[in-house]
C-alpha cells in the first residue's frame, strides 16, 4: 500500500433507479476504491441486486451520476476490466452448452470479432475451470450439473475474463462450504493482486475475514456503510450508523447495544418495522 488513498473505481453520486416509474433506489452515494473488498448486505428486496445492476449499467439511472474507473458511465467501454456474476438459478438454455463453452464466453471481452481463441484465452479458461474445481467436467453439458455446480460455472466465467473489478451477486448461494472456502481463497488471491470486489451476500461464511467494508441496504437506501458486520448485526445495522458518524471510526460491537440517544428516535421512518 504505497498510495494512501487509492483512486475510486466505482463512484455513484446521488444515484436513483426507478423500475416502471416506481422509485426503487434513492439517494445512493457509494464510492468503492481500488483494491477494496466490499460486502453488500441487507434483507430480501432491499435493493442489493438492483444496485449491482445499476453499477454495471443494466438498469439506467433515473438520477445521479456514475463513474467507472474515473470515466463517466456513458463513455466507459473498457468492459474487460469488469466481471459480473449474476444472481441466478442456473446456467442452462434451450440448446446443450458445455461447461467449457459457457466459461469461454467470459473471454469475449478480450477477443476481437471473428478471431479464433488465442492461447492466452485457452489458458485463462482452463485456469478458471481449475479454480472452481470443474476442470474434469468441462466437456459435459451444463444442464447435467447440480445447481451449486452451475453457480460455480458462472463464477468461472467471470474469472476467465481476468477483470480488475468484480461484481458478485450472491455467488455462494447453494454452494457447499468446502467450495465456498475455495472461492474465498480465490477472491483472497485476486484481492491481494489488487482487484476490487463488490460482493452481495447474506451469509459471508469463509469470506468474512476478507471483507474491508460492509454496506447495508434497507428499503432502497444505504442504511450503513462502515467496518464489516456479522450477519446477525445486519438487520439492526441502521442503528449503528449514527454511532459511527458520531464517534468516527469505531469497531463494531459483538452484540448490538441498546442505546437511546436522539438520532434513532428522530428517524422513525427508518425504524424497525420488519
Amino acid at each position: 500500500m504505497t498510495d494512501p488513498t487509492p483512486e475510486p473505481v466505482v463512484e455513484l453520486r446521488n444515484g436513483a433507479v426507478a423500475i416502471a416509474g416506481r422509485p426503487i433506489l434513492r439517494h445512493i452515494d457509494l464510492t468503492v476504491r481500488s483494491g477494496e473488498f466490499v460486502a453488500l448486505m441487507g434483507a430480501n428486496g432491499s435493493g442489493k441486486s438492483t444496485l449491482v445492476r445499476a453499477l454495471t449499467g443494466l438498469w439506467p439511472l433515473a438520477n445521479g451520476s456514475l463513474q467507472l474507473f474515473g470515466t463517466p458511465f456513458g463513455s466507459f467501454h473498457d468492459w474487460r476490466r469488469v466481471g459480473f456474476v449474476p444472481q441466478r438459478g442456473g446456467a442452462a438454455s434451450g440448446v446443450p452448452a458445455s461447461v467449457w463453452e459457457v466459461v469461454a464466453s467470459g473471454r469475449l471481452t478480450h477477443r476481437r470479432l471473428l478471431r479464433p481463441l488465442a492461447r492466452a484465452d485457452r489458458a485463462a479458461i482452463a485456469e478458471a475451470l481449475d479454480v472452481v474445481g470443474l476442470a474434469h467436467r468441462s466437456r459435459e453439458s451444463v444442464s447435467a450439473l447440480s445447481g451449486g455446480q452451475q453457480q460455480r460455472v458462472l463464477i468461472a466465467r467471470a474469472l476467465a475474463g481476468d477483470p480488475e473489478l468484480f461484481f458478485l451477486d450472491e455467488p455462494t448461494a447453494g454452494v457447499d462450504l468446502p467450495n465456498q472456502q475455495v472461492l474465498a481463497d480465490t477472491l483472497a488471491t485476486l484481492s491481494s493482486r489488487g482487484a476490487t470486489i463488490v460482493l452481495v451476500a447474506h451469509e459471508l461464511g469463509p469470506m468474512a475475514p476478507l471483507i474491508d467494508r460492509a454496506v447495508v441496504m434497507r428499503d432502497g437506501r444505504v442504511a450503513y456503510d462502515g467496518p464489516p458486520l456479522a450477519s446477525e448485526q445486519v438487520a439492526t445495522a441502521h442503528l449503528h450508523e449514527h454511532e459511527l458518524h458520531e464517534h468516527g471510526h469505531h469497531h463494531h460491537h459483538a452484540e448490538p447495544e441498546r442505546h437511546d440517544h436522539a438520532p434513532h428516535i428522530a428517524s422513525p421512518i427508518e425504524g424497525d418495522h420488519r
Partner: protein
Amino acid sequence: MSDYLDLLGLPFMQRAILAAVFTGLAAPAIGTYLVQRRMALMGDGIGHVAVTGVAIGLLTGASPTWTAVLVAIAGAIAIEVIRERGHANGDVALALLFYGGLAGGVLITGLANESGGRLNTYLFGSITTISVDDVLAVMVLAAVVVAICVGLAPQLFAVAQDQEFARVAGLNVRFYNLLVAVLAAVSVTVAMRTVGLLLVSALMVVPVATSQQLTRSFRTTLTAAMLLGTLASVGGLLLSAYLSAHARVAPGPTIVLLALAGFALAWPAGVLLRRRRRLRQPFPVVASAAHQTIDVHPHEHGDDCGHVAVPHGDHVDYVHDGHRHAAHGRHYDEH
C-alpha cells in the same frame, strides 16, 4: 433407374438440388439460436407474415421473393421489439403476427385476382419450378446467413445464453437480437421455395431437436444440425423425385417428414447414449464411510462378467441392482 438418373441431370433438378443444399445449411444454423432462446416458433411466425409479403409481390407485380424478404424482416423486427419492450411476452407477440400475416396475405392475394394456386407454390414450396435468378438469390442469402451464424457464433451464443452477462461484457445486445431476428426472416424466405412458408419452421427446428439428442456442446449441436438439415433437404428432394415416377409426391412435405424421421431415430439413440454415459461416469472419490463388506457373494465380478464397471479412484466398482461392489482381498465391499 436410368430414368431417374436422367431426371437428376435435368437443369431444373440441378437448380433444385443447389437450393436444397443451401437452405438445408442456413435454416438450422439460425434455428439453433432460436431454439437456444426458446423461441422455436419464431420461424413459423415470420413465415406467416411473409405470406403477406408474397401477396404484395403478386399484387404489385414485383418479385414475391424480395417483397417477402422485406415484409418478413419488418415482421421479425416487430416481434423482437414487442418482446423487448415487454408489452406482451414472446409467444403473444408471435400469435398476433401469425394471424395478421396470414389473413393479410389471403386478403391481398384475392385483391390481386390471383388464383390460390400461385400462393400455394409459396405456402408449400415448389423447389422444382425455381428459376435461375431465384437459385442465385437463395444461394447468396443462405451464404450470408451461414457466414454470420458461424462467424459470430461466440457473440450470438453469449447473448442468447445470458443477456445480462453479455451486456456487462460490452456486447450490444439489442444489435445482436435484431441481427438474429433479421437472419431468421432471411432464412424463412430462403426456405420458402424449398419447403414452403407453412413448413419453414420445421427445417429450422427439427434438425436442431435431432442433433441435441446426441450432443453435449453448442458447437457440435450447431454443426450437426446443419449437417442433418442438408441431409434432410437433399434427401427429401431426391426421394420425392424418385417416388414421383409412381405418384404425385411433393418435395416440401417429403423433406419435413424425412427430418422428422431422423428425429424419431435419434430420440431413442439419445436416451440410450445419455444413459450409458451417465452409467459409466467415474464415481467421485470421497473420504468415505465405514468399511462395509458383503457376507457371501455368489458371483465373481470381472472384466466380462456382464456388469457395468465404473472407475472409482484407484479401483473399479461393479454396478448391479443398485449396489456398487468393489473387490477387497477375498470378499467384496459395498461402496
